[in-house]
């Protein structure tokens, strides 16, 4: 079947791209738009490495058909930093607390953290852990990642995380 032209609105920029109906959003972001910050781990919805925001909600881009994202705003890890010389507060917090080892899970973790903090600016530690339960990390043991998100919540203007 021939490719179809769709409009993807990625990080505020709209662009036309030709896709096969069976191509996933993760594939198109990485291979057609060269946005390789989004990672593909399991390619089955289990690990969260491919997490992006679609209309403000975290989704697994490895299970989202690219055509279904036509004209619906998408945010990827590349769209978080306000400029080339600054990081987003969540990214800063990951650097500060050393929540990154190999980094393969980080983009997905940060996008899940963004979804969590957008919906719950003052999460408890339990809520942070729950909010990240769809993201696997094989390196950090999660402790630093959870800490980073608490720090990010503070940076973003939230009160210190309350205990559950």
């Amino acid at each position, binding site marked *: *079947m021939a490719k179809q032209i769709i409009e993807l609105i990625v990080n505020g920029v709209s662009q036309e791209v030709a896709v096969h*109906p069976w191509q996933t959003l993760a594939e198109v972001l990485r291979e057609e738009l060269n946005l390789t910050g989004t990672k593909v781990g399991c390619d089955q919805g289990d690990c969260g490495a491919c997490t992006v925001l679609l209309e403000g909600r975290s989704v697994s881009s490895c*299970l*989202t*058909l690219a055509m279904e994202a036509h004209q619906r705003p998408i945010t990827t890890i590349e769209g978080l930093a306000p400029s080339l010389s600054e990081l987003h507060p969540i990214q800063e917090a990951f650097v500060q607390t050393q929540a990154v080892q190999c980094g393969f899970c980080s983009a997905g973790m940060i996008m899940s953290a963004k979804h*969590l903090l957008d919906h719950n600016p003052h999460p408890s530690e339990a809520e942070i852990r729950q909010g990240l339960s*769809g993201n696997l990390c094989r390196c950090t043991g999660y402790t630093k990642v959870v800490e980073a998100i608490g720090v990010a919540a503070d940076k973003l203007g939230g009160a210190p995380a309350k205990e559950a």
Partner: protein
Amino acid sequence: MAASHFALHQPQSLDQALDLLEMHRASVRLLAGGTDLVPRLKVGALKVQNLVSLQRVPGLGAVAFDPAQGLVIGGTARLSQVAALPQVKSLYPGLAHACSVMATTQIRNMGTVAGNLANAAPSADTAAPLLVYGARVTAFSKAGERVIPLDQFFSGPGLSVLEPGEIITAITVPPPAPKSGSAYQRLSARSKVDICAVGVAANLSLDGQGRVVTCHLACASVAPTPLRCLQAEEMLSGQAPSQALLERAAQSAAAAAKPIDDMRASAAYRRQMVEVLSRRVLVACLAMAQGGAA
């Protein structure tokens, strides 16, 4: 995506969707959130030439509660929408629990309740709670509308009574009875993310004397379909709900289960856990029913 090549149709109305299902009936599937279908298409476990997406069909995406009608879950309403509705949390806590702990945040932001039911996995997490709340499935086809009580919906692992040309447009759940309580509990290996190994839901209502009016009990992952435990329900109906009676009902539920050994749990463990979870949810329902005003 490797294994499977297909055409994707994105109708803008229910009529268009029904036309597309008919036109491509030789090889077609409905697509909602894609969280069941896409993984299977990727590995080649499912081959289909046409997908008809419901995501751009207007009017199917809402979740709403009305004290007279009860809860209406639209045919494309996502699991996370159901979990977020305040009246679901307060009036249908078993369903709220299922929709907020199953799968992952990302999957709940994509997957739909209708897809969970239509997929008809014995482990479907919304099935047991919706069964105990007496939910009904509304389906549209070229022949018109049909309402299917959920306890007549499942016909085997991955099978339902839904016809190929039918689209679920809504799932309706009656308002809760006065002095009632309900709950759902599930066990899985990777805390939440994993498909549940055992799940039990119950919904119990009391009369003015504190006797049980009705109790519904249903289990996930312990039979070829989500399972209503009718004998346990009958044991409770009309009775004073003593601890001993709840215990016997839980034993009866365990006896009714037809579990199998698989990678998630052994049959013996599942049967034992049906008893444990049944007891726990019945105790929780009773406390809620006794505490809640009519």
